[in-house]
């Protein structure tokens, strides 16, 4: 138990600075999107604004597209880059815990942190836009944004997977595969059209969540 606390504290020390930046970035962008929406809504008039929005399916929230990815990069890299450059993780693996447990405490910690940086912002955003937009629009908008959020989580898991891979050659190949996988999350889809893709994306995210097991296994054995 003490080791667990110790581990989490260590992760917190590494990531707190970047996590707070990520939190601010997430909130800032979402609030800016809301402010811009409000501005357009007020200057065009609600009736006109809504009918244009519904006819052209305007993606007024498109600024948010790569924000989850950016947050995942911030948290993932701040968590795993020092481990790699300083070979610190090797030391951590000598703790009296199972190796996989240690890796997974790190990964789950990062996942929870990612969740805590993004989801409150999304909740606030939903509340704010509901003031101006009816649920018939808000729900498809959130559906369209959800692949991006899932993409954030998936990117984080893939960063962990890649970081734990010991051989540079394979790391490069994983980066290529990860890039292609992530493009699935960030396709340019019209509002409401992402729904049919969501189960596939959830499956991929789930799979990427257990992928670090494979590379950490390779890492432990020091394969090259």
């Amino acid at each position, binding site marked *: 138990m003490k080791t667990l606390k110790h581990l989490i504290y260590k992760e917190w020390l590494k990531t707190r600075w970047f996590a707070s930046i990520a939190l601010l970035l997430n909130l800032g962008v979402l609030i800016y999107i809301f402010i811009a929406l409000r501005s357009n809504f007020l200057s065009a*008039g*609600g*009736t*006109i*604004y*809504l*009918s244009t929005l*519904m*006819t052209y399916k305007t993606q007024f929230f498109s600024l948010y597209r790569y924000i989850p990815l950016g947050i995942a990069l911030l948290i993932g890299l701040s968590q795993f880059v020092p481990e790699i450059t300083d070979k610190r993780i090797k030391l951590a693996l000598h703790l009296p815990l199972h190796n*996989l447990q240690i890796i997974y405490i790190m990964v789950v910690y990062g996942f929870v942190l990612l969740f805590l940086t993004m989801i409150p912002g999304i909740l606030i955003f939903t509340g704010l836009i*509901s*003031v*101006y*937009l*009816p649920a*018939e*629009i808000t729900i*498809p908008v959130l559906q369209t944004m959800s692949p991006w959020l899932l993409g954030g989580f998936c990117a984080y898991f893939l960063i962990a997977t890649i970081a734990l891979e010991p051989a540079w050659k*394979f790391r490069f*190949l*994983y980066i290529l*595969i990860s890039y*292609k*996988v992530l493009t699935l999350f960030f*396709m340019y*889809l*019209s*509002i*409401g*059209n*992402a729904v*049919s*893709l969501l189960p*596939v994306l959830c499956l*991929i995210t789930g*799979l990427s969540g*257990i*992928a670090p*097991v*494979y590379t950490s*296994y*390779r890492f432990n*054995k020091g*394969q090259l």
Partner: protein
Amino acid sequence: MTLAAKIIRLFLVLLGVMVLAMTLPELYRKNFEKRPGKKLIYYSEISKNFMISEDFSDTLTNENHIIYYDQTGKRYTEREYNRQLPFLYTRKLALLGELPDTINGNKFDQQLIKTIKRGMLMPVSSFTFQLNPLFESESGKVRPELPDDLFRINHRGIEFLDPETNKILPEKSRSFNKTLKAAGFQSPARNIYGIPSTLKSRDDGYFIIDQRGELFHLKMIKGRPYCHHIPKNISVSSMKCMVPGDLYAYIYDHQQQLYVLRTDYSIKKLPIRPGNGRFMYSSNCFYKSYKNTDNDSIRLYVLDADYNLADYHAIEADNYSKSPVAQTEQYLFPLKIILTPGYAHMIPLFNPFCRFIWLNMLLLIILAAIKLQNHRKLYNPFNLLDLGITGIFGIFGFIAVLIFPNRK
């Protein structure tokens, strides 16, 4: 632990296969695709023949070489061909002074030309917000005007929403709800079809499928609600509403069979084989033609003004899947995964089994050789699975297995 890692590796290999099956065939096609010859088929209102044009032009040299013939194989010159299709080549014929004076006894003038309608029918309708403006149907204006409110139909019934305040207008909602209830409507609506745009010459309101799957017609006449229950014996899968004419809408049922909903609320099944359900339609005051293109053929159905079959002809299609490049593709890739553009439906397309099996076997042998070279035991279940994946997924499996190395 070891076992878990190995199983997870297999999942990752499958993910790799998926990624490769999306990437490689697309790259292959982009690199090697040749332009397919273009075949067009139309129905001539003059000779009542199917007119076919076939384009043998080479895009590289840009030489124009087009031949024209009808369904009997009789050849036409370009001039003759154009004359058979006055609705399609109106401008060219007018400049040449070759426009017919009359067609089928009707004077060929602007009025007649205006009866042309062309468009596309798809069995899946694209996403729409379930929130629509209800226009005034008899405003006395040429074009409908955008109302100040929007309506939705949820479990509480119809609700009119003021977008400025995002609040519901209780009185209007109540009065419309009453009419809907009286017509036998059961909330909530499964789907609402209509044209929520002011760019139409008349407003026909909305066609609504209620909770039980019954069809209703809703519109607003002089501020008063109007709701009519349309009896039907089909299950509606999607609808495409038409701008004013003799039709309210086209209806697809779940077998992609096409129906028309006429302005007298009668529903007529069209004498058309559904195929893949996608139709290019073109109608004028004499005939309505529906063209369906799939992998093998182009089928053109010609219906008369009362939607009875007047004529039918099919020609062999000439698209990418028939080109030699695509044949080679079938030898290379056991399957490809395509994403429908803009919709993100993932569709795996499998190739004929016997084509790719040879490449798969070859790769299987190479993989086995690599494994033996590295002193792996081939009867190890995970090595067998690797070989199995290569055997099934061919080139994708081969690459993916090598990307995620398996430890001894």
